[in-house]
């Protein structure tokens, strides 16, 4: 298998899924992201990212029970997989290692 890629927005969604462990579904992820990013995020973007990552095997999903809310629709909860976690770690290490190469500069 070729090296799996992780887009910038996908990475954010994945981080959010990991952070909201076992409680993450469309709306919570959307709200979490809006809160952190301090800007409007589109629900469609979140769902597309989730679907792609599920296909790639970074997250897996399960259905919640049916409640009176949401027009009686089930929630689809997402959980990060081992592969997804590995991917996040790799991204983190990559950024960290590059960051560490920045020479000490003091501004002002």
């Amino acid at each position, binding site marked *: 298998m070729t090296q799996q890629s992780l887009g910038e927005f996908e990475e954010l969604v994945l981080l959010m899924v990991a952070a909201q462990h076992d409680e993450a579904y469309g*709306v919570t992820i959307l709200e979490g992201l809006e809160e952190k990013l301090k800007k409007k995020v589109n629900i469609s973007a979140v*769902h597309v990212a989730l679907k792609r990552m599920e296909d790639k095997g970074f997250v897996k999903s399960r259905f919640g029970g049916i409640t009176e809310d949401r*027009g009686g629709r089930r929630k*689809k909860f997402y959980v990060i997989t081992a592969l997804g976690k590995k991917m996040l770690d790799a991204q983190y290490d990559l950024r960290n290692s590059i960051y560490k190469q920045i020479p000490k500069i003091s501004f002002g």
Partner: protein
Amino acid sequence: MKKQRPYPPQLSLRFFRWFCHPKLRDSIEGDLMELYEERAKEKGKRKADIRFVLDVLLLFRPGIIKPTEGYQNLNTYDMYKNYFVTAWRNVVRKKSSAAINVFGLTLGITCALIIFALVSYHLSFDNFHHDSDRIYRFVTEEHRDQVDYEASVPPVFGKAFREDYTFAEKVARLCTRTNSLITIEKGEISEKYTDQIAFAEPAFFEIFNFPLVAGTLDQFAKPNTAIITERVAKKYFGNEIPLGKTFRFYNNFDLTVTGVLKDIPVNTDLRSEIYFSYSTIKQYSEWYAADDAWGGITSDIQTFTRLQPGVDPLEVEQVLPAYVKKYRANSKNVHHYKLQPLTDVHFNAKYGGVMDMTTISILSLVGFLLVFTACLNFINLATAQAVTRAREVGVRKVLGGFRSQLFWQFTIETGLIVLLATLLAVTVAHNTMPYINSFFDLQISFNLFSDLKLSGFLVALIFTVTFFSGAYPGIILSGFKPVQALKGKLKAVQSGSFNLRRSLIVAQFTIAQLLLIGLIVMVFQMKYFGNTDMGFNHEAVVIIPTGSNDEKLNSLKDQFSVVPKVESVTACFAPPASNTNQWSTSVLYDNRSEAETFSISYKGGDENYLATFGLELIAGRNLTTSDTVREFIVNEKFVAKLGLSSPEDVLGKQLGVNGNSWKGPIVGVVKDFHDQSFHSDIEPIFITTRKSTYNVFAVKINMKDAANTLTALEKIWSNMYPEQIYKYDFLDDQIASFYQTEQRMMTVIQVFACIAIIIGALGLYGLVSFMAVQKTKEIGIRKVLGGDVAQILWIFGKEFTVLVAVAFLIAAPVGWYVMSQWLSNYVFKVDISIWMFVLELFIVAIVVMVTVGYRSVKAVVANPVESLRSE
């Protein structure tokens, strides 16, 4: 409550539901609704509506939209996966019945595969020659008081036909000699081989597709040239170039190799690998080469032709009587020359075909029956266990499974088991093929990948067996009424009629008993061969070739007779019964003006012939010592054929045989003995002295210390003929070889009968287990109420006794009919007696008792508390 909630724009929601992938629809719609409600609360309905429509539009993108080709496929694949999972679970859960099924099917399929390989091997014989539909062999019907069939015509026939008529494109004569002595001089040493050779006309290689790889045919018209195959070239000359090399034939004449043939394929009856040019034949036999050789027929020489396109063989046969009129006008042996198609050569036993079509059909039938019984077994077990799967069927139906889906599910299950059995069968067949080849003297290859016919057959077999054994249980199972099935009210009766299951068992046992009856009759007939006195002594008689017919013969005889433990020695044409050296001739008796209508068979031998073979004189005296024809001894049959009552009547009368060239008085009459195998009647024979025809020594030895005696004989012979190869046979072995076909056939039937019985027993076992499970409660109650074990056992016993009895009533008459047909091949045979059937029934009874008994005793001795506690 619900109505008070704000509701998103209907149109866009419907749009979303329409385009969204069904797998995602629920959760995304839920998210949308949740967000909508939240926003409506915070920012009002209008803003929420706008956001909703925007979100829906933004979701309209690949990944969310459902695929156009239909997502349903995914579901069906999953269903198929489920079929396999269910099938596997079933196999694992019911290990014993799965094992019975797989084992039974494996046996059946293995037999079918092997039989198919065997049959297609035989059917492929000589099918690789160009225009083989126009190739014929000339054969002869000899009409005397009875009709004999010869696979050849007079030696000169081919030549005459070629010159006189234009029907044929090519005519070729072929003279085959087996076990010929070939010597190759290699410096000091000379290597000796005994191989089959054939004298062939050049046209032979134009009719038959045996291509040359080196040399040309041009040289092959000349005398003393030879063509050999690559294999023989390698054997004789190693890696040297064979062209131009020479070898000797019977230390008589030299041959030079002028061509090398590609190796002969296995599927041909023309097995010679060494061909001498036909012009060399003069040096071998004057008579074979003579232009007036119309007087007789030798089985050595076969004549083949490829007719011109469009020529009708019947048209050709109509002109052939002209030869008889012209050259054999006075003979009492009226020849009728016929054309035998090449495709018939391998199969027509009358003309020496190896494999007759009857045997092929019987084999195919047996193969079919074995697969059939294995399938019956499967059906039987599957329907018997149908009840245990009623719940599953109920649930599947309630959840919306169609009947056809259930049917396919069970068919796939069957297919899996068949596939497993086939894999095993292929492995078994592949590993047993070498043994079968050596047993039948065959060279069948068993290669699935290179043999398209075989792999095609295998695929067809898998499908047929799957459908045949899967369809009925599939129909039964898929026909269950869901409510009844779920309530557990289904009874065995509904899971396929019990009568049907009974008839399946009856069918299986009919087949098994049929084979068993056949086997028993064959065993008795073979025993009869072994035990019946042939009328002469054939024990402890060693047959050794004479080597030559000059004075060395007498010298050898003298040397042999002084070896200790040698009881008597005779030099003779052939032993009293022989398959290889048979020669019959017309006979002129006393002063009668015309030859008799019957032929008489020649048994040449010196004055020790009668003593060595223990032939009993009933009138007259023994022959006196002579090297040429002087006196005759005849048998009782000859006297009877002449219509005379007493053997004394022929004594002193003149006899003329071999075209009246051998003449002399009859001096003795011997008691009849079997001069051929038990297939044929005893023929009139005459015994006389003629040294030049002696082929073999027959040496009667004392079997104590036989090894030393044999070594002594070999030493004497090899000293006399250092340039030849010594070989010997026991007469007993030669006689046993008369019945080699029967021996083989018997072994084959034996194996098949065993397999049929095993398959039958497996089926029986399956049925008994089913009955035992069904009757658990009944047995428990009976025991509680005081029924004893024997009584309860009889519940099982009577069922199967009846079934086997019915099968027997069907098998016995059929078996009797078939075996009487088979026995009619023999003039001397056993009568089919009632005891054979009793024996057969006894064997089957034991098998049934063991199978049924084992399982039912287990059921009967179980503690009734166990079976009655529940409920």
